[in-house]
């Protein structure tokens, strides 16, 4: 299926671009509707025929991966779902990858969110990832969902010293003192790694400023591509690493598949979306080249 898809896409897009290139040599500009058709093909063909590319993790992503990988088994990892449905297509691959990795390493996963819209996304993640792929994991022993509390960084200011001043129970109403996973856990300082996933406010930056840095707790992030540049200055001192956009998610998924053979067949939406993104970027670059050729040809022709 992939081979047919590759052939079709190369034929259609490649030949089409070649034709436009020849037209550009003659000084003809491209109608924008043709550009739309090519973009539509560039996005849909890789999705339909599952064209994907292998990824190699950049250092900023690798550092997060190996931080989780090198933590002793049973370490405490906190995942914060700080995003809503509109950002989910971009950052959900990251949150799923983090969840799989942490559970595969038998770490204890504490799940919460600073966005109200994160609650339903956590529920979806638990149903689709934990219950389906890790049925042996027990709620309250291997993972726990303590849900949402309003207040943004105010929540972090409290739980940096005492979880129970903000959270008395988990989302199911079970007292934290009666769940084994919370035994010996008093505050965020008892976490071995904090991971915030999101691209808005409050988000990764607030976790760094109000939890990671003051509590000296290793902090990593997963962010939408548009918000990632503002977070790069925190790497590597205040932030262990960062997954920026769908590319970061794809890199992490590829690293996960490489190190954990049991994930060979796991859904990899990050890698899957890199197919359309790669092809679309190539098409855009091709059109930029074609446009410049037409521009220079026309400029030369003008007296």
């Amino acid at each position, binding site marked *: 299926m992939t081979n047919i898809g590759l052939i079709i896409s190369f034929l259609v897009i490649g030949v089409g671009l070649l034709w436009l290139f020849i037209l550009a040599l003659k000084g003809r500009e491209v109608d*924008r509707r043709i550009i739309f058709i090519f973009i539509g093909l560039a996005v849909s063909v890789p999705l339909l025929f599952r064209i994907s590319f292998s990824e190699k993790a950049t250092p900023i992503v690798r550092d997060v991966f190996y931080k989780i990988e090198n933590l002793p088994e049973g370490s405490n990892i906190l995942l914060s779902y700080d995003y809503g449905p509109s950002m989910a297509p971009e950052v959900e691959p990251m949150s799923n990858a983090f969840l799989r990795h942490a559970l595969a390493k038998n770490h204890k996963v504490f799940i919460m969110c600073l966005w109200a819209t994160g609650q339903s996304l956590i529920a979806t993640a638990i149903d689709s990832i934990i219950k389906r792929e890790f049925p042996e994991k027990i709620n309250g022993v291997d993972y726990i969902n303590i849900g949402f509390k309003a207040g943004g960084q105010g929540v972090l200011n409290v739980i940096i010293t005492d979880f129970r001043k903000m959270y008395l129970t988990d989302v199911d109403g079970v007292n934290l003192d009666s769940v084994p996973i919370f035994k010996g856990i008093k505050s965020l300082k008892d976490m071995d790694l904090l991971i915030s996933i999101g691209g808005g406010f409050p988000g990764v930056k607030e976790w760094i400023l109000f939890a990671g840095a003051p509590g000296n707790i290793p902090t990593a992030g997963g962010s939408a591509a548009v918000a990632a540049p503002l977070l790069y200055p925190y790497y590597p001192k205040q932030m262990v690493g960062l997954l*920026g956009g769908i590319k970061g998610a794809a890199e992490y998924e590829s690293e996960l598949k490489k190190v954990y053979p049991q994930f060979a067949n796991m859904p990899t939406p990050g890698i899957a979306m*890199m197919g359309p993104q790669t092809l679309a970027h190539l098409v*855009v670059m091709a059109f930029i080249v074609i446009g410049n050729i037409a521009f220079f040809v026309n400029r030369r022709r003008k007296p």
Partner: protein
Amino acid sequence: MKKQVPLTITFIVGVVLILSVFFPPVETWGEDFSLFFDIIAVFAFFLGGGNLIRVHTERIAKKKKDWGFSIITILGFLIMLAAGLFKLWNPGDISADVAATGSLFQLLYDWMFNPLGATMYSLLAFYVASASYRAFRAKNRDATILLIAAFIILLGRTPLGMYATGWIPESFSVLQIPNLAIWVMTSPNLAGQRAIMIGIALGVVAMSLRLILGVERTYLGMDID
């Protein structure tokens, strides 16, 4: 008088909002003025909604061009309003959460509103391509530098960037395209953004002073000549 009253209100509110930052006893006044604006904006919803209904009703009545779309607009407005106001199909009663699971409001939100919004948002993918085609021309030196940066970012955000430059040794890893893309975003791009933000902040200060002091009055319809 008609113009003096709004100018006076602007001056008083502007000065109080500035003072509320530096003088704690009047800190709540600044918060109160912001709340006043929010309350006025809520009442203004009726103005906007009423205007929408009036404009489209007139189009339907006079059978102006494309009046059929006005029917859809008014139907959509009324159905959504009724669904939220009267909690239609809501598992709870009239005081229940308007977006409760199974309510008509939540169904319309999930099955019509969200997909329509996502559809409009998806137009950006196409429009970015056509805008890039038109805009990234190497007309001069600055445009050429922009073009090169665009290529680096476009390649850097795909695996091809690593394929093309993965052979570069680790000691020169900054020249690998993905790392170069990160450098472009975090150094020149961020520096330029911050410079623009400083200019914007100063522009806001100057504009606000003009408004508070009454030097700028065009928004009241004055000094238009």
